[in-house]
């Protein structure tokens, strides 16, 4: 069992999410940085769909009732296991916390979200097949609060090693495929300028600030389904890129779809974003 000593500003349980329910208005949710989730799970021998903790910038502190194998991936942050610093190797801090020991994930120095996997996984009750906290709809467990306790599942597999994670870079170039509503804005403008990640970004979407796109078509778009990575342009012309907790339908035009949103999971406010057109 885990006791939360310091929950941090937004620490949630996340796994691969609950895709397949968009027609009921249920967001997919799940870890924003899925490669970091898989990496952490593999280091502790979990299946890829085991639930982990996702922190936001300031980390969290946890006490473990029993001896537990733990892996921390994602954002670069100092980690203390029972007051001793743990070295980061291959994008991961892997260590065993003794019974009664404390894990402290400190403030991230690069990136935004750290992923804490424990052997056996976080064993809260699944909701619609997933243990993910959905910050938009409220499905899944509540965000962590100081004093909460979390059950741990039974460790199963032997740890399997995996490749290097992608580096967290200061400037992002995102591949985007235009459509479905690229005729609603002068989308060529998307590729000619750079944007910055707005501090209003969250698990629902990465909001960009920069040159407002010019509207090419008047009127209002009836609500339609939207996907992960959709570049939605509201009335102010500033694009929003939908992340895991995005709504399932929307009424603003989606001018393109980003092919990999993983870098946005670790992009801090102020990070420069450019777009590259994909076929």
């Amino acid at each position, binding site marked *: 069992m885990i006791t939360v000593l310091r929950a941090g500003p937004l620490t949630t349980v996340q796994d691969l999410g609950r895709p397949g329910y968009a027609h009921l208005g249920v967001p997919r949710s799940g870890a924003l940085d899925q490669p970091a989730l898989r990496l952490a799970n593999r280091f502790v021998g979990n299946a890829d769909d085991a639930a982990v903790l996702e922190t936001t910038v300031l980390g969290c502190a946890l006490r473990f009732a029993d001896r537990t194998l733990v892996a921390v991936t994602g954002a670069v942050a100092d980690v203390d296991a029972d007051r001793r610093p743990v070295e980061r190797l291959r994008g991961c801090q892997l260590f065993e916390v003794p019974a009664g020991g404390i894990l402290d994930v400190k403030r991230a120095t690069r990136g935004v979200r750290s992923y804490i996997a424990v052997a056996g996984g976080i064993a809260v009750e699944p909701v619609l097949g997933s243990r993910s906290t959905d910050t938009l709809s409220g499905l899944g467990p509540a965000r962590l609060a100081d004093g909460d306790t979390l059950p741990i599942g039974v460790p199963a597999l032997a740890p399997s090693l995996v490749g290097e994670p992608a580096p967290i870079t200061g400037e992002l170039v995102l591949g985007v495929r235009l*459509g479905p509503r690229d005729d609603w804005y002068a989308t060529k403008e998307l590729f000619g300028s750079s944007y910055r990640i707005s501090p209003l970004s969250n698990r629902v979407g990465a909001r960009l600030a920069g040159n407002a796109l010019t509207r090419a078509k008047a009127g209002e778009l*009836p*609500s*339609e*389904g939207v996907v992960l990575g959709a570049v939605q342009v509201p009335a102010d012309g500033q694009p929003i890129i939908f992340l895991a907790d995005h709504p399932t339908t929307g009424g603003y035009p989606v001018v393109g779809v*980003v092919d990999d949103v993983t870098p946005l999971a670790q992009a801090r406010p102020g990070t420069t974003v450019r777009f590259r057109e*994909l076929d």
Partner: protein
Amino acid sequence: MKIRRVGAAGLLIECPDPDRVEDWRAELWRRRESGELHAAEIVPGALTVLLDGVAPGTAELLAAWEPAPGERRSGGSNVAIPTVFDGEDLESVADLWAVTPDEAVRRLTATPLTVAFSGFAPGFAYMRGFPDEWAVPRLAAPRPRVPAGSVALAGGYAGIYPTASPGGWRLVGRTDQKLFDVRREHPALLTPGTRVRLVAA
């Protein structure tokens, strides 16, 4: 029919009217059920059906699957929603329709509705069936908190709030039906294609 690309693995079918959306939605759900179509999500909208997580070549398949116009394949269930018509905006809706509140309630209970699509919140269904002239604008300022079970109107749609949330729809009544419950085998009471009647409780 026009198909638009949505990223690497998504397609958006544009339909001329909501009936065609329902035809396509039912057709695609049936084809997925039978194993002919692989799609992670099939999501109807107001005038579109989105497919996400499809294999390359699916767009070509769709061209051959166009359902015959008016061929209703919907196996949607029938649901009656017992409703107490005491909503705060019932009078304003009646005013917009230029009828008495009693006549507004008669219209609401006499009109067969169909779930067109879902969104906004888990289990929130956009129900259609009212004539276009009955469309009502959203409130100028949304309420910070609309209680769960509120039956409401906006645009040409009726909707029922599954959970308490902020909302700008006009409240005409309330129901004690549970719209969304993750413990049920089918968590949403109202899904696309469901036929709905509001019944005075």
